[in-house]
């Protein structure tokens, strides 16, 4: 299960924060900050897994992250998820954003925050489970279709 999805920039500013488990706002910010400090220390050429430790749910949890240009995409998952799968998932997620915004950059995320949330739940993650999102290529097309449909639904209203 995915516990949380955090996207923040190189300075630790949160760009998208989605917790699938309830934490009070202060704790959420604290988690973002801690996570940021953990990932920041790491070079780009070392592995993308971090033992979660005390951060969210104890030793069962791992942080899996990817760094794209100015943004860190961090997924906090428990042991039922495949580590490599989540890495692919992040890739798919970023590709989806890329398709939504056409060459996504940090500014897009900043200014279209209302649009990227649907990109998360509509396209993929639901109820704390990174599930259908794990549909890889076949479904990445489908995800985009969903978003496309969503947009068209918006247009027609």
């Amino acid at each position, binding site marked *: 299960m995915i516990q949380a999805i955090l996207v923040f920039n190189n300075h630790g500013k949160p760009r998208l924060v989605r917790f699938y488990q309830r934490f009070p706002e202060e704790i959420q910010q604290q988690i973002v900050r801690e996570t940021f400090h953990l990932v920041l220390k790491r070079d780009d050429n070392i592995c993308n897994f971090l033992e979660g430790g005390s951060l969210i749910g104890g030793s069962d949890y791992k942080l899996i992250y990817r760094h794209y240009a100015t943004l860190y995409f961090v997924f906090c998952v428990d042991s039922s998820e*495949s*580590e490599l799968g989540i890495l692919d998932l992040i890739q798919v997620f970023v590709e989806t954003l890329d398709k939504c915004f056409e060459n996504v950059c940090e500014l897009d995320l900043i*200014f279209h*925050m209302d649009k990227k949330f649907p990109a998360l739940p509509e396209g993929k993650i639901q109820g704390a489970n990174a599930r259908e999102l*794990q549909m890889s290529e076949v479904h990445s097309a489908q995800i985009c279709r969903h978003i496309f*449909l969503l947009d*068209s639904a918006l247009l*027609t209203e």
Partner: protein
Amino acid sequence: MALKMVKGSIDRMFDKNLQDLVRGIRNHKEDEAKYISQCIDEIKQELKQDNIAVKANAVCKLTYLQMLGYDISWAAFNIIEVMSASKFTFKRIGYLAASQSFHEGTDVIMLTTNQIRKDLSSPSQYDTGVALTGLSCFVTPDLARDLANDIMTLMSHTKPYIRKKAVLIMYKVFLKYPESLRPAFPRLKEKLEDPDPGVQSAAVNVICELARRNPKNYLSLAPLFFKLMTSSTNNWVLIKIIKLFGALTPLEPRLGKKLIEPLTNLIHSTSAMSLLYECVNTVIAVLISLSSGMPNHSASIQLCVQKLRILIEDSDQNLKYLGLLAMSKILKTHPKSVQSHKDLILQCLDDKDESIRLRALDLLYGMVSKKNLMEIVKKLMTHVDKAEGTTYRDELLTKIIDICSQSNYQYITNFEWYISILVELTRLEGTRHGHLIAAQMLDVAIRVKAIRKFAVSQMSALLDSAHLLASSTQRNGICEVLYAAAWICGEFSEHLQEPHHTLEAMLRPKVTTLPGHIQAVYVQNVVKLYANILQQKEQAGEAEGAQAVTQLMVDRLPQFVQSADLEVQERASCILQLVKHIQKLQAKDVPVAEEVSTLFAGELNPVAPKAQKKVPVPEGLDLDAWINEPLSDSESEDERPRAVFHEEEQRRPKHRPSEADEEELARRREARKQEQANNPFYIKSSPSPQKRYQDAPGVEHIPVVQIDLSVPLKVPGLPMSDQYVKLEEERRHRQKLEKDKRRKKRKEKEKKGKRRHSSLPTESDEDIAPAQQVDIVTEEMPENALPSDEDDKDPNDPYRALDIDLDKPLADSEKLPIQKHRNAETSKSPEKDVPVVEKKSKKPKKKEKKHKEKERDKEKKKQKEKKAEDLDFWLSTTPPPAPAPAPAPSTHECEDAKTEAQDEEDNAEGQDQDKKSPKHKKKKHKKEKEERTKGKKKSKKQPLGSEEAEAAGEPVQNGAAEEEPLPPESSYSLLAENSYVKMTCDIRGSLQEDSQVTVAIVLENRSSSILKGMELSVLDSLNARMARPQGSSVHDGVPVPFQLPPGVSNEAQYVFTIQSIVMAQKLKGTLSFIAKNDEGATHEKLDFRLHFSCSSYLTTTPCYSDAFAKLLESGDLSMSSVKVDGIRMSFQNLLAKICFHHHFSVVERVDSCASMYSRSIQGHHVCLLVKKGENSVSVDGKCSDSTLLSNLLEEMKATLAKC
């Protein structure tokens, strides 16, 4: 009104939208907090306005602020307002805000229940979708209970998009409302075979997640998953299933055996690293569960290790990390196969990535042997020196200690080396693990007797340099080491070379800067040292020397008396008085040493940490009972009867027996040892209490290898462990030369003693004998210690509530709570109510379920056994016999024997052939039921073909759904088509509203143009009208809410209100659209006819046989019948067709005769009795409306005629 609207939109122009807010925050970097609080004030103003658009905008901004860490719970009510907006754009904003900020503590959340229910049943899939998504984030137990049924209905929605979401959210519902698991599970299971891969994978995910927490309840699903695993090509689903199997195998080793082969195949064939990795992981789990008594899998292990090596050697750090992670799992059971890759793992220790180094460290733990321990630790020590960052260094430190101390210091051959390693570790600055080192020092010094002398010398050196430690490392934990050092020097002071020197070191004023608990130990051990010195001096006749020591004590102790720490203060003042008293005695020339040393006489032995807990309460001892008579205190222990004494001795190992019959005791001890040696459950206890009697061949008297004298016993300053490595090498070399001789000796030793190493021989280590006697005194445990009970599960574990047996048949009481509609009919007759209540809580088509229901009371136990048998059967290594038809009397029975449902019926029917007539059945329903079960039991006894048939049927039951091939059918029928577009539609009765049907129209674009501006206009009839948006007239078209790019299809749903449902009817309609391609746009039209058949007004409603019987008995149903000839299709498929096309469900099936039930959207009950003859089928129907019935039967006739 209009003015207000205009005003509202003008106001909006001046409001900030989200973009403005973000921009504003970026422009106010210096006073961000101030700017935001200003914005929040604005938002509060906006929320007070009536205009929903303004509110939505405000909520949208709040959501952003929430992400930045601002509490927005005060706006919860406004969020709900926005959620209930009719416009999707606003609704979405509301749900998003809710999902981000609502939680169980939000009190207004209960207001949302109805809104959410409305959205869930909305005809627009996006409304439903957004509600589901939002709900998944903030579902509470109340919401879960109230909405479980609605969500379950959505699990069979026509749109995969909704089905998928509904399946996923069920997981959350289960968590919050565990009672829903059992009623919903059958349907969830069904979704495992959903045609849409997305839905399928969602179901797999949910079940995997459930099974991970309580695997044993899902064992029975193993065959189904196995089938999925071998058939699925979706890597994501495969990964999940394989992970699930990893969780299941520990419970069922036979499953593991079955898995090995397909997994190995996957490992060989797959190119996806993630899949490969998970396969390897599960194979490892399988091997672990099989580790005992499965010799043939060394090939699999080799394969795994090989593949992992490839991963570890990969340049991708992620793969390397995972490879090491998996390797550490293999290590636990198959250390040898990992050990061969030591080179690789040591290499990883040098990796620049800390995560990888840590993983490699984990692996090292299992790779050490007597041979390489020193080498590995040496390497680690160099890492300790190099490591920057205390976390990693601390990790190294704990690992070194772990590695060395594992399984009772099994791999340490030279404890002098180990002590010096520990001493070296004390030089680490800033470590948090001083107490760990201290504990090791104490442990080794206490348990390895031969090392005490050496340990004491090292410790006194440590104490000597204590000022160093104390001053520079006061801030961190390393001073804990002094605790151990002081205690060891005090307790084993007889080994001290220069006790006086050490005493002075311990009484230095600097000591008072140490933490209180260490000072306390200092004070206590100072006295031990003092007692020792006193004795030495007196024996040597140096009275003055003795007095000088006393004087030193009297001078120095007051510094402790002033300590702020109570413990230190108390001990110090106590001891100070004691010493002063001694001083007085000494002044009178009274010899005191003897008496002082009795204060500390005797030896302390290590006691196992759990020893106290494990002392069993002796039989007959009631701890709560009042003790009336105090034990007679005049009796001293050795005067007691022998038997009592003997027991006492065992239970209280610390007890010191005084002079007793030594021979007798020795004899008894021998006898007991013998007994213990033969008793595999006995935990060895130390021989300590009987120290004095050990002139019999005891631990002390085994000829030991003397400590090599070339090792300097006292190393000046701090020792270097390296020198021990060298010495150890020399020693080993010498040992080799003396090997033969030594072997002999060892054999002798083993014969005599109960040496630990003799019981733990490792072949590869055999030629290395330890330098020290490894006479590790095992920890004391009470004689008959209870076996350790594992810690109970955490009672607060949320998943615990989901530990529910899913194989047990559903009980009547187990239903999801349903909101009942206000239905005039239902209130009229209570018995008609039954089907309504049952609605949706049971699956309509699962006959198996019904049988279970029927026979629940009597057969519950049997069913359970049967389940187990099924699994057993599936797991048995022999290939399951093909589900071939069993020999049965008549041809159609033979045909039907394949389906499991039929099997049971056959068995029952073997006895009750003549009970087929419907009237008979109607009247004697209950009786028949009883007879049937009886009949079943009887037939079980007969060793006829029927049992075989059952056995053959079982794997099908679990392997699921190998039904007779029925051509795949769609409920969507063609409506109209032309070169541009193809329309198919499905008409469903709505469960939510009376007299409404939902028409789902799938539009498929077949052209290369984009279709847009689609409008659907339908001519209403008197009887049926389309639900249109408010304000639009009957003649207006209804827009289709999407566009269609080339080749794409999509579904739109429309609701129709029907007045009378007793007749079928047709509505004319037109679809108009604009087809746009490169050449331009054209207006196109397509006419169609919507055919509302009577069947489309029926909704599949399950009904129980007893309710069904009551309904028939009530007598207010009219009857009609129809017969069709020339039918060759099997009865099973026939029924399936009726169920599918006419929305019926099978109530009961007896041989070639079945009763079926359905219910119209207006509450008409329709009961059918379908009978199959040689080549014909007759259908008798009963219904509360005769017109409806006759129309229905006509439709059915048409369907059957096609068969």
